[in-house]
Structure formats: C-alpha cells, structure tokens
C-alpha cells in the first residue's frame, strides 16, 4: 500500500534522512521508534509532501507520489496528524472538523463525532482553548473527516494525560480493525507503541536500522539498548 525506497531528505545541505526504506501493507499498524533528532518528523513531513525529497521514491497504492503536492496527497487518502497537533487555534472545534471534511460527503463529521463523543460538547469552543489531550483527539477527528486510507501520526502522546493516551490507542486500533485504516505512527513512547503497533521499525540517524516485534519492547535488554541510543 505504501512503499518508501531509498528516501533522502534534508534541510538545505544538512541531510536528515539517508535512504529510508519502508514497506507498509494493507491493514497494518506500523510504529516507528526513534529519539528526538533521528528524523521521525522529517519522515512524516516528507510522506505528507511538506518537505521536498532529494532522492528516492514514495509509492502510495499504485501511484508514485514522490513530488506530489500535499493537498493532492490528502485528496488521495493520506491524512496527517502532526506533531504539536496544529489545531487552527482561532477556529471553533466544529470549523476545525469542517476543514477536515471539505471534500467528504454529508454526515461524515457526525459519524466521526460518534466515534469520539468527547468532542461533541466542545464543538463551539475555539480550538486553541482545548487541553492538549482534547486537541489531540480533535486532530485525529479532523484527519478522519477526510475518510483517509492511511493516517500518519507524529508523536500523538506528547504532553498528554495517560487517560487520553489510552483512549487514542483504543480508537486507532478500532479504526484499523473495523475500517481497515492503515496507521503509521512515529513515537518515542515505548509503552504506547507496544500496545498499538503490530510492526515496529527503529529509526536511527536517518535510517531504519532494524525491525522489532512489539513483544521486544517488554524485553529489558532492548529497552536499555533503545534508551542508550538516545545518548
């Protein structure tokens, strides 16, 4: 469903991704584990088309989208839940959702709200006034309003209370299982990723260095090793 081949991305002359390879099949939940500065956000932004690719290729379904503009990617079924959530702060929750549902059929927003009922009573609040957890739910709901086939999430647990992390994890698993939404999430929260992902890739210095199984994350030796990689 998504093929990333030898992806090189950088800011100016500073290389960040040095040939990432990743293959994601239909129905999967992929976690990408990495510390700050390893290129997680760069990878997500490049997949969304917000950063130009230096070399390599990205194929989504049957189309090569390596240099496709973000709005075309969005329209072809890729949704993005960015780091920091990027809620439109001066728009109400409802208008944030309407922005997600620009091209969706009527009723999409209501169905999404049924999945995430917590947002219902917040509809008329400005997005900027929500708590971090609520904003994260809103960002996911906004992404869902576009009826995506693939959802990219960048550190969805950052700065969020544990109860909502749980809720997010359950929601994503359910969406994956009932609506076969493909999920790629980059994280450094081991527990979250262990509960959510079925496949885990480790990103280090702009490369996917290895893949591990979710059960490995309960293995003390790996955890020590991973924590050590950050330093």
């Amino acid at each position, binding site marked *: 469903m998504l093929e990333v081949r030898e992806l090189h991305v950088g800011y100016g002359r500073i290389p960040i991704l040095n040939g990432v390879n990743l293959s994601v099949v239909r129905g999967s939940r992929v976690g990408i584990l990495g510390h700050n500065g390893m290129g997680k956000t760069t990878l997500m932004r490049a997949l*969304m088309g*917000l950063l130009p690719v230096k070399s390599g290729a990205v194929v989504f379904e049957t189309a090569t989208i390596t240099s496709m*503009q*973000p*709005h075309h990617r*969005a*329209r072809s079924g890729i*949704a*993005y839940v*960015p780091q920091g959530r*990027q809620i*439109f*702060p*001066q*728009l109400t929750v409802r*208008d944030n959702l*309407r*922005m*997600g549902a*620009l*091209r969706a059929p009527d009723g999409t927003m209501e169905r999404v709200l049924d999945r995430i009922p917590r947002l219902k009573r917040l509809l008329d609040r*400005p997005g*900027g006034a929500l708590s971090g957890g609520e904003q994260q739910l809103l960002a996911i709901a*906004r992404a869902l309003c*576009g009826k995506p086939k693939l959802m990219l999430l960048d550190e969805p647990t950052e700065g969020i209370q544990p109860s909502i992390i749980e809720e997010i994890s359950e929601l994503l698993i359910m969406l994956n299982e009932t609506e076969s939404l493909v999920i790629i999430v980059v994280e450094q929260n081991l527990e979250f990723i262990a509960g959510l992902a079925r496949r885990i890739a480790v990103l280090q210095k702009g490369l996917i260095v290895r893949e591990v199984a979710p059960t490995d994350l309960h293995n003390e030796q790996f955890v020590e090793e991973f924590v050590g990689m950050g330093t």
Partner: protein
Amino acid sequence: MALVLHDMNGLLMDLLAITLLEIFYGIASLALISLGLAIIFGMLRVINFAHGEFLMIGGFSFIMLTSAGVNMWIAMLIGAPLIVGLLGIVVERVVIRNLYGRIVETILATWGLSLFLMGAASLLFGYFQRGVSPPFGTLKIGNYQEGVYSIFVIVLAAAVYLSTYLVLRYTKLGLIARATMQNPEMASSLGVAREKVYAVTFFCGAALTGLAGAVLAPIAGVVPTSGLAYIARSFITVITGGATVIAGTGIASVLFGTVSQLTAILTRPVWGEAALLLTAVILLRFLPAGITGRYFRNGL
C-alpha cells in the same frame, strides 16, 4: 427668548449632524481604501506597495468604462472591481507567488510594480481623461449642505465590511481562507490547494481596492499619480489595525477617521493629518503588533 433658545438648539443640532456626517465620511473613506490592502496583508502577509496604484487603476477603469457608455453603477460596482481583481491575479502569479514569506523581497517587488503601473497608466490613460462628476444631489441641514454621495460612500463602506465579514464568517470559502491564514501547511495537509486560495484572496483584495478607487474617483478625480495620495493613510490604518482584517482595519479606520476629522473640525486641517500620525505613532509604540495584535485576536 424661548424662540431664540430654540434656534440656538437648532443651530447646534445642525452643527452636530453635519459634524457626525463628516466623521462618518472620514471613517468610511479610510475604511474603503484600506480593506483590500488589509486582506492581502492579513491573509497572505504580503505588503503590497502597489496598493495605491491598484486604487488608481480602479478609478481609471471606472472612468474609461463610463466614458465608453457603460452604466455608471455597473462600471463602479462590477467593472472596476473585476478589472483590478484580474490585475491582482496576474500580479500574484507573476510577482508575488515566488516571494511568499520573504517580506523584504515582496516590498521591493511591489514597489517596483507601483512605479511600473504609474508609468503604464501615464502612457495608457495620461493626465487628461475627463472624469465623472459625483452623482445625486445635496442634502440641506440648516445652514449646511452635504453631498448625498457622501452618504452613499458611508453606506457602501458599511455594506462592504458587513459582507466581507459574512463571507469570512459563514461561507466555506471564508472558512478555508481563515484556516489557510492561520496555518497554511496544515490547511494543505487537509486537501486545500494553497496556491488557489492565495490567488482567490489576492483577487478579492484587489477587487475591493478597485471598488474603493472607483467609488472615490468622482470626488478625487484620477491621474496616474493618484495612488500617492492614498498610500500613506491606508498603510498607517492597516499596520495600526494589525493582522486581523475586519476588526483591525475597521477599528483603526474608526479611530483615525474620528481623530483626524474631529481635529480638523475643531482646529485646522493641518492638525487633522498631524493628529492621525501622532495617534498612529503612540499606538504602535504601545501596541507594536497593532490594535488586534493585543485585543480582538480571535476576531476576523
């Protein structure tokens, strides 16, 4: 004695009415000439130094269309906005598109554009195009007489602001515009074609500028250098207003219109302009991000 008192009251009322009318006219003309600039600045963060020339071309479009036999109102309310709006699209494509986010470059480029448009207008239209006189008659208030056209300008400015507000607040186009302004990257990640939004925004800002140029043409007349007469005041209004298009520019227009007109009425015209500048300097000293940089931030 009672009769004299009544007369005095009458005179006072006349003076009050005519003074209010002057203040409203001052506010309306300031608000009209600034709105297009505010939209382009607020939405796109582009400082359009050719704004005065957009006003001038709006005025010329109106005059040329009218002298070609087009109905005056069609020329003013549809023709001139359309022509300047299309010019705006061309300018956005050719000059602005590659310069988003680079403030200094856009200033230099639009400054060059302003000189170019002035030169082009002097070749194309020259200094001797016969203007159109203000329509409608006059309104008598006691000893005073005011053009009905002034009232038309006031009503039109209010209508333009109200409809811009309604469009931004209640339409899908307005929603997309507001979202793109707040976070262009996120908007494009949600399927918004950013370039199209920018082009449409530029069209709307330019069209409103064209409308303002046409509305003021019967009063001010139009020459290729007319833009110079507007540019300073519209910039001061927009910068003082801050990035919030309707609230900021609206409030700044009300403030400056009132201050400069009141000062001009109570003292001398020289002080009217000076008061406007002084108010702007003081405001920007204490509110460097403009009025709406601190207040009404969540407004439109």
